[in-house]
């Protein structure tokens, strides 16, 4: 039986490429064909670089043919969230204000992918400037969840999780400011890691909130995440907040998958009330799997986590309001002239452009942040939020005195339907309640699938958090849990996802909105 190259994991592809059983061109073609078939429905991509991906695949095949020493993942294609600058490839951040902008430089993460010889398939969809938990705030239309096209794929990195979940790419790069890698992973049945803050360079990552943003891997297996983590991690002199230390031994940890004697801390504040029953049930089972694998469970309390959401929604908009000031029509991107003004001033052009170019959620947060930083309010808002941030870091420090890792459900619910929360920002924000503390404290976190919730048959996520610079612990615990879950499921969870067919394309086009799943056939492999 021939391997379905689109369903193979990155590590499997690496083996096939190394042994010569397939070529990078062959893999890349297969994935591009898959995109052609399914992405009209899923809309994971904002831009597909068909020719560029094939050209770099061809290049790496030639180099392999010449016997050059190549990186382990050389030739394995990857998708990149549209918030990372890619030289020669459009970078929009899901915003109209950057429509048509082609960066003259590569983000460090992208440069490292290219150095490793990984063909870049395209740029994935996202909530505008990474503000959202559903991709409904993308200026270019939402991405749909491959499990149910009526539902959100999570956000802001819904494109990167969906591209992996729909087998259009084995790997993708996401970014996580408050859960934008982990929550999409949870609701699409995939794996996502937010590394320790400073573990992966932010150079070229268009900043949402500089002190919170972190790029990381979006994959289908824990080992793949570790392999990708190793490629993109490590010190970068272009980012002064980058950690000047080697990447923790994540791949080794993922391979050993050993949790014997580890103390797993269940965060009291991140379970129970407010979490969907099916999500909680899968979480409890997962904890039992870890106990079966030799881990010890302890309960920890992090009382300040209850204030995390409030602090986050002051710090993030404050930093964002300043980070987004550069989008002013002066040097790049959209330029809109105000209507009915004869000789507009620079200020008028800036205002007209920002009015037309930014979506409502972006404007909401810019206004919020501008207010929070204003003199007279600074101490009460930004200042207090920073104090809460320190308390949260203290809570983590205390918890890690008794536990090696902390665990919780990644998101309170499975994927919700489009439109359910779009007019209720608070409900939308609550999605990130369990993921935000890690960003505020700079600690690493991972989400991996824990199974399907009984009430809706949709994936639930299991979150692991580790102390800063101990990212390897995520992979040890994640891999151990994954092994046992795969055994209990009899194969990858994504095998139970509906089969997206060619036939679905036409009708999805016709309905255009985000409301049809009629052409999805359920139950492949189930």
């Amino acid at each position, binding site marked *: 039986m021939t391997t379905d190259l689109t369903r193979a994991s990155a590590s499997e592809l690496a083996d096939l490429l190394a042994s010569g059983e397939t070529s990078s061109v062959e893999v890349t073609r297969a994935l591009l064909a898959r995109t052609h078939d399914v992405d009209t429905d899923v809309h994971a991509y904002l831009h597909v670089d068909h020719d560029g991906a094939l050209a770099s695949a061809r290049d790496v095949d030639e180099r392999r043919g010449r016997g050059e020493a190549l990186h382990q993942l050389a030739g394995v294609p990857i998708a990149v969230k549209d918030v*990372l*600058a890619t030289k020669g490839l459009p*970078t929009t*951040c899901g915003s109209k204000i*950057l429509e048509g*902008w082609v*960066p*003259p*430089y590569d*983000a460090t993460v992208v440069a490292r992918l290219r150095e490793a010889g990984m063909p870049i398939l395209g740029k994935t969809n996202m909530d505008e400037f990474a503000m959202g938990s559903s991709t409904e705030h993308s200026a270019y239309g939402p991405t749909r969840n491959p499990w149910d096209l009526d539902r959100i794929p999570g956000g802001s990195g819904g494109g990167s999780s969906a591209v992996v979940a729909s087998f259009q790419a084995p790997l993708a790069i996401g970014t996580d400011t408050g859960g934008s890698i982990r929550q999409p992973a949870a609701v699409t049945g995939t794996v996502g890691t937010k590394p320790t803050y400073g573990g992966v360079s*932010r*150079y*070229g*990552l*268009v*900043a949402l*909130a*500089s*002190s919170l943003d972190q790029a990381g891997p979006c994959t289908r297996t824990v080992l793949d995440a570790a392999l990708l983590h190793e490629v993109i991690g490590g010190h970068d*002199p*272009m*980012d*002064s*907040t980058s950690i000047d230390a080697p990447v923790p031994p994540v791949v080794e940890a993922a391979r050993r998958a050993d949790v014997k004697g580890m103390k797993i801390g269940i965060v009291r504040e991140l379970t129970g009330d407010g979490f969907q029953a099916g999500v909680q049930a899968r979480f409890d089972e997962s904890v039992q799997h870890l106990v079966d694998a030799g881990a010890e469970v302890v309960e920890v309390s992090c009382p300040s986590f209850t204030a995390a959401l409030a602090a986050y929604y002051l710090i993030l908009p*404050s*930093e964002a*309001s*300043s980070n987004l*000031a*550069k*989008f*002013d029509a*002066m*040097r*790049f991107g959209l330029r809109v002239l105000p209507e009915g003004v004869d*000789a507009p001033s*620079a*200020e008028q052009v*800036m205002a007209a452009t920002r009015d037309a170019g930014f979506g409502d959620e972006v404007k909401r947060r810019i206004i919020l942040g*501008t207010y929070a*930083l*204003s*003199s007279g309010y*600074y101490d009460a808002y*930004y200042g207090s939020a920073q104090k809460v941030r320190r308390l949260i870091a203290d809570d983590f420090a205390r918890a890690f005195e008794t536990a090696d890792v902390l665990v919780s459900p990644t998101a309170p619910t499975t994927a919700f339907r489009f439109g359910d929360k779009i007019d209720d920002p608070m409900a939308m924000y609550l999605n990130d309640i369990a993921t935000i503390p890690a960003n505020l404290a700079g600690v690493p976190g991972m989400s991996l699938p824990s199974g399907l919730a009984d009430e809706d048959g949709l994936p639930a996520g299991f979150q692991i958090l580790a102390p800063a610079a101990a990212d390897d612990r995520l992979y040890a615990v994640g891999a151990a849990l994954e092994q046992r879950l795969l055994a209990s499921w009899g194969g990858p969870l994504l095998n139970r996802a509906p089969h997206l067919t060619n036939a679905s394309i036409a009708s999805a086009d016709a309905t255009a909105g985000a409301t049809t799943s009629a052409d999805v056939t359920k139950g492949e492999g189930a």
Partner: protein
Amino acid sequence: MSSIDTEATISYEEVLESFDPVMGLEVHVELGTNTKMFCGCATEFGAEPNTQVCPVCLGLPGALPVVNEKAVESAIRIGLALNCEIAQWCRFARKNYFYPDMPKNFQTSQYDEPIAFEGYLDVDLDDGSTYRVEIERAHMEEDTGKSLHVGGSTGRIHGATHSLVDYNRAGIPLIEIVTKPLRGAGERAPEIARAYVATLRDLLKALDVSDVKMEQGSMRCDVNLSLMPKGSTTLGTRTETKNVNSLRSVERAVRYEMCRHGAILQAGGSILQETRHWHEDTGVTTSGRPKSDADDYRYFPEPDLVPVAPPQERVEELRATLPEPPAQRRKRLQSDWGFSDLEMRDVLNAGLVDLIGSTVEAGATPAGARKWWSGEIARRANTDGAVDVATYAVERGITPAHVVELEGLVKGGRLNDSMARQVWEGVLDGEGTPTAVADARGLELVQDDGALEAAVDTVIAANPEVAQKVRDGKVQAAGALIGQVMKEMKGQADAGKAREIILAKLTG
């Protein structure tokens, strides 16, 4: 549009009768680092517009700053030289406002955590007294781009059809040095302002951290000024006069604003808190942007940069690299050289300290060095419109060695003073070294004592009355006889020797 409206002023004396000025000086200095504050772009002045730029200093999406360590070290050295405390831990902050020449629409600066704070600079004034200027802070920041407004008059934004922005300057490291409000300056306020900026300029030059060229904008001064009614302790409303870019203008701008404020206050008006522009040509300031305390830059700590935390040992290492403070150096040299206060001041005003220093080092006497560098050559440099004597000399290949040689010729008895002057003129005319000029012009004292004695005899015979005075003990009357002897000898005699012979003949 009418030309600039000239506002009412009162005389300086009238101002001083009723008011005490309070000044605050903010000086921006561009550091002479090879690269910008937060990226690796070059900082060369006068390059083609927008050729020294990169994603970082253009504020492209995703780009991140990295602090220039050299700039931080310069900032620390400046802080130490200004007797400041150096922060053990401080952060950059974002100053948020929209302006087309600011790529990110925020300036990366320092706010409440400056790298250096609480210092002073002692400033010597013309009357020999010293005024201590208290320094509030010195902080690091990046420069903005430069807007060029096209189509309007004299490059102003008003009436322009469009604007061009050059981002070469964006991101150049700046140090802003801010004084505390300077009180009690009274009538000396303009002089103190000028002397402070001049002293600061010399200090920065000695530190070798900036080329401090005010005319090129690498050193810029903003003058804050307010008046307090005499006897009051409440500060008046201040104005901030921007970009006062020469020492003379600093002095004039302070004086002008004092007279303008005085006129408004005396007429019962109130001062508008605003930014004002200084016009070098007309010597007045005009209203700029109203500035109020409501200006809200929404400062917050720059999250893209880690804090600056210079280790104490490094600060001490940098302290050890500080040059002798210019004022202290001047005092030491004056005493070494034995110059009077007046002589030293002339030397300072003429910018001759370094030149005299190297000439003395080369073997000349301090008095000789001062004499030769401040006489004829200064007159010529001035006539030529040269920046200063040192530049003039360098351009013409005239060196301290020439002065040493000239002095040697006098000391060795080949030339007398008047002959030496002629030789020096020849040197300045480009005729060669002093020896070469003396040779070419045939200048040499007559060494034959017989000829000199004969000349003395002739002069004594021709001036019996003067000779008698000398005989009677009026030794100073010999001077007239020496003059006559020199005339007789056509200047080619050693005046000292002539004096010896005269005295020997008349009193011996």
